[in-house]
């Protein structure tokens, strides 16, 4: 886990959440920009998973590595699941789902940083 990549992921997910919230506010359904944002987020998360596994195999990282690996893999499911579930809803609640998904990603990244630094049980 690198702080720079984590920060980029948090910023991108919060921007995507803000954009989706704005779409929901304007009563718009999900569209291509939301999908692109989720795609970018997923690419960043896959990069993080690769970097994370490389670092773990080099004996870096937290003592509770099982929990960290759990987060590393579980977080990959969120953007695609959010995209699929949001696309099924042709109303403002589609982007609403993306708000939930993006906030969840941001929160999980913060937790992962805490686990990595050992400040979280």
């Amino acid at each position, binding site marked *: 886990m690198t702080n720079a990549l984590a920060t980029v992921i948090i910023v991108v997910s919060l921007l995507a959440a803000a954009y989706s919230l704005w779409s929901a506010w304007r009563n718009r359904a999900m569209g291509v920009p939301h999908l692109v944002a989720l795609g970018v987020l997923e690419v960043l998360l896959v990069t993080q998973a690769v970097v994370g596994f490389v670092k773990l195999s080099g004996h870096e990282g937290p003592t509770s590595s*099982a*929990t960290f690996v*759990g*987060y590393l893999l*579980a977080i990959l*499911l*969120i953007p695609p*699941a*959010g995209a699929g*579930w*949001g696309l*099924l*809803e042709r*109303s403002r*609640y*589609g982007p*609403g*789902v993306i708000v*939930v*998904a993006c906030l*969840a990603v941001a929160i999980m990244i913060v937790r992962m940083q805490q686990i990595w630094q050992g400040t979280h*049980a």
Partner: protein
Amino acid sequence: MPDRPEATTRSGPGRLLVAVYALFALAAGARAGVQIGTKFSEAPAAYVLSAVAAVVYVLATVALALGGRTSRRVAVAACSVELLGVLVVGTLSLADASAFPDATVWSGFGRGYGYVPLVLPVIGLVWLWRTSRTDGRAEALTGEGAGSA
């Protein structure tokens, strides 16, 4: 059942509810998996409880997402068990911390998850109650209802 009306528990605001439930199913499931897979002997009771919580979240997610009569009953049961669980485990974890040496999603009334586990079943039950009234009206209007499970 091709021409059944859109199940209302999953559409509109229900879409968000299912999304949040799915997140908690993932969180509780992953947590239980790690706890049971790596350190089950440390606190078996707490970890079994984690697994039970995960199953309840998965059931609620699937039932709310499917809609329909049977699913509605399963969802009401899951949300009720969840509310009961978070209240009982929350109280016990504060009253007797030694009984819960490691956290579950329901410890401290879901403190570790921004108290969402405490609020979520209440929202779920209110949503099921509200959609049951509109569902009933839709079924009466379209002559549906009997036999559609």
